[in-house]
């Protein structure tokens, strides 16, 4: 009975906190509105630690307020000499032992969760079902993201497409400086190092995806240069059947066929100035060192221009005209000479026509 009461108290404290925090932030971006198993586990740990810590704060606050009010030096006490107390073993033991117990309560789930989140055995299993466990190679670059699906042989950039309600595994690496891969609503981050490959997994919940409007925001979380703040990416989780359909389309997307005459003109410019870095087919066979710019195969389907601007031709032209003004320090500035307005129009038309869906 007593234990039940205690549980109930803890539960109500939890409930209060959850209610308080859930109002915070956007469903596509906030860690407080977890959208998958990983974020869920982390959120529970956050709630547990916050509850314990609120308890500590309350105890300190009560003593604090009492002491500061009760023991202030009042008029007429100018010469009062309080008793010089050395200490109290009993009290000191109490405030050593109780925190230790509180920390143990936190330490156990912390350790368990840490191990659970690091469990990537399934992706490294030689005999794994390649259709069943999706693995994505994430490569972070100044200031864009490449997503390679090694089992499907396709590559895309900036917009990550994943199936919902299942574990998705990631290999993470950076090609220039250290970055960090973070989708706040879906789960905690992991660094993309330049030295070694990191691995972790995430789950994208279908209901939460619907609530977030179908797209989650991804961020670079490690200072990586002038445009660190602008190194966003987007995540588009799809139900498994739609994901499979998307993969099929990507695999079948060979060379883009352009019919519009202006776009055709754009294609010519692209083939002269851009194709050295940018591929326009998802089946880019070049080694990763040669893939120095985002794959543009499904550019027309993307969420944003350069990861940050709203996806329309006007912004694309702005980006092509002067990339430096949009993303300072980017690697595209100055690589293709000066384009005339007409050429930019043609190029924009062509790029917007690159679609697989």
């Amino acid at each position: 009975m007593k234990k039940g009461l205690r549980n109930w108290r803890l539960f109500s404290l939890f409930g209060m906190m959850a209610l308080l925090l859930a109002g915070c932030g956007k469903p596509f971006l906030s860690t407080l509105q977890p959208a998958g198993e990983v974020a869920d586990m982390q959120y529970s740990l956050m709630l547990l630690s916050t509850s314990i810590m609120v308890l500590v704060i309350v105890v300190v606050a009560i003593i604090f307020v009492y002491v500061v009010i009760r023991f202030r030096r009042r008029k007429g006490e100018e010469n009062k000499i309080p008793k010089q107390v050395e200490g109290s073993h009993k009290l000191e033991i109490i405030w050593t032992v109780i925190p230790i117990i509180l920390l143990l309560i936190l330490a156990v789930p912390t350790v368990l969760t840490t191990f659970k989140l690091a469990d990537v055995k399934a992706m490294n299993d030689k005999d794994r079902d390649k259709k069943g466990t999706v693995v994505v190679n994430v490569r972070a670059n100044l200031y864009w993201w490449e997503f390679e699906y090694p089992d499907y042989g396709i590559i895309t950039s900036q917009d990550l497409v994943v199936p919902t309600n299942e574990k998705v595994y990631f290999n993470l690496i950076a090609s220039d400086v250290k970055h960090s891969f973070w989708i706040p609503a879906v789960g905690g981050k992991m660094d993309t190092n330049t030295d070694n490959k990191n691995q972790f997994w995430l789950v994208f919940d279908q209901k939460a995806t619907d609530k977030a409007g179908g797209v989650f925001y991804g961020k670079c979380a490690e200072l990586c240069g002038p445009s660190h703040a602008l190194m966003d990416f987007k995540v588009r989780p799809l139900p498994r059947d739609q994901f499979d359909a998307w993969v099929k389309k990507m695999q079948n997307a060979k060379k883009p066929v352009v019919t519009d005459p202006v776009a055709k003109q754009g294609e010519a410019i692209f083939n002269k100035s851009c194709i050295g870095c940018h591929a326009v087919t998802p089946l880019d066979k070049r080694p990763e060192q040669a893939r120095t710019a985002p794959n543009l195969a499904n550019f027309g389907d993307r969420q944003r221009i350069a990861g940050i601007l709203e996806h329309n031709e006007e912004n694309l032209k702005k980006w092509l005209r002067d990339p430096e003004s949009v993303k300072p320090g980017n690697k595209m500035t100055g690589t293709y000479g000066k384009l005339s307005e007409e050429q930019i129009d043609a190029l924009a038309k062509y790029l917007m026509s690159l679609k697989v869906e």
Partner: protein
Amino acid sequence: MSTIARKKGVGAVLWDYLTTVDHKKIAHLYLIAGGFFFLLGGLEALLIRIQLVKPNNDFLVGGLYNEVLTMHGTTMIFLAAMPLLFAFMNAVVPLQIGARDVAFPFLNALGFWMFFFGGLFLNCSWFLGGAPDAGWTSYASLALDSKAHHGIDFYTLGLQISGFGTIMGAINFLVTIINMRAPGMTFMRMPMFTWATFVTSALILFAFPPLTVGLIFMMMDRLFGGNFFNPAAGGNTIIWEHLFWVFGHPEVYILILPSFGIFSEIFATFSRKRLFGYSSMVFATVLIAFFGFMVWAHHMFTVGMGPIANAIFAVATMAIAVPTGVKIFNWLFTMWGGSIKFTTPMYYAVAFIPSFVMGGVTGVMLSAAAADYQYHDSYFVVAHFHYVIVGGVVFALLAGTHYWWPKMFGRMLNETLGKITFWLFFIGFHLTFFIQHFLGLTGMPRRVFTYLPNQGWETGNFVSTVGAFFMAIATVILLINIVITTVKGEKVPGDAWGDGRTLEWAIASPPPVYNFAQTPLVRGLDAFWLEKMEGKKELTPAEPLGDIHMPNSSFLPFIISFGLFVAAFGFTYHNDAGWGLPVGILGLLITFGSMFLRSVIDDHGFHIHKEEVLELEKKGANA
């Protein structure tokens, strides 16, 4: 001040400070230089907050923002907080242990000038192409990629030079505290601030070498063709992170332990009670320092060290909360049953408890590795460490300034202005940083120069910027207070607050050049308080009055440090210009030449004769 110093021109005063080896004057130097860098770092903070006041702002964009951000952190940690703490250590510790000076006065001056020239060199980068721009942590891959200007070289060389100074200061305090305590001052009778200084110095001694190693590696990589951090040549960038944080985490305790020491003095003084649980306070301090070396990797949970390392470092980090909690409760129970007088320093001390507890509990939250994957490198972390460093260290610096100002300068800072400063700073601080917890939890990464609208971060950032201006106004009022006090402040007796407990309050304010005419005999904790309780006004002397041996002033510390300053310029530019190498060598010649001079010139110091001491003491008593 002594008769000699009374009627001197500006030039003579300047020369006096350039050559001084007196710990009290070196404290002034640390206070002035540290204060200057504090204002600079504060200005940089304001620029950051102005840029972030609204989404898509274009006040401070991209690379320039990163420079300001890097310099804000580097300046505040290395050039403001630490030197300001060193100011109080220098001003107070020799007095608290009943010593006439530190063990190595020459080294003390050298330490200051090293720090000063290192800091100056670092800030010269602003005028020479650009400041360092890889964050105060300067992670290797980004630092090596920063090739547009020499910013990072100013960082590696500047911090090496100022690091020499810091480590010299630490060794000096260790030797001083071990060897120069007055008779009867056993270790367990040392005031808490002296204890904190002692433990902090040990921390510096062990924490700075890893940083120096890291900085030398990086300097090699950038300037001398090294490959320590080049994965293609067998190097590894993660090593930098380890080296940096093996230093970086103890650094946090290097800042906070002396702050704890300052607050311990203030709580006891203004509660008129001895520190509750003194022995457990000492033990907790040592324990925090010890644990401090075993938790560095909690800054690297997301690096990919694997679950075993993450779990171990998570639990070790949680353990630090225990001794820290012990301290909080001891302070509360120092006030319990006391007679609390709410002076300006006590305002800061009282406000410190809830503020620091906030920073402490978010620290425990961050230690939960799996949850840290969410907090890491988000504004939650920014909020956390500002709660610790501003709510802990800066509050302590402001408290210490008001508390020891009368001891250092003989005049009381205006209490009304002091309290106005406090309220503005306190409100501004919470306004700025509390809301940043939520910015981080709702997905805002740290170190971003801008953010797009419609991500739910507009209000939080606006409030945060408003708070920063409160703190700025508070700082301006403090400066006004200092000016007014210097011009026409009320002169104070030795025991300026009337409730002084430790030895520094037993001698004149400011103390005479030799501190104690006769070395005192210490009969317990809070030595001066014990004497006062027995109705005495002075300490019991442990020796007869005699001639006092003093060290000579010297200009060499300045020259030695200046040589390194010159050498650093030379080596920074040795790949770009022909003059680089010769200038670098010239600088080293200046440094080693002056060190040689120091070694061969006999300097026996001088004596202040008994009669002179008697005369000075009489004047001090009348002042």
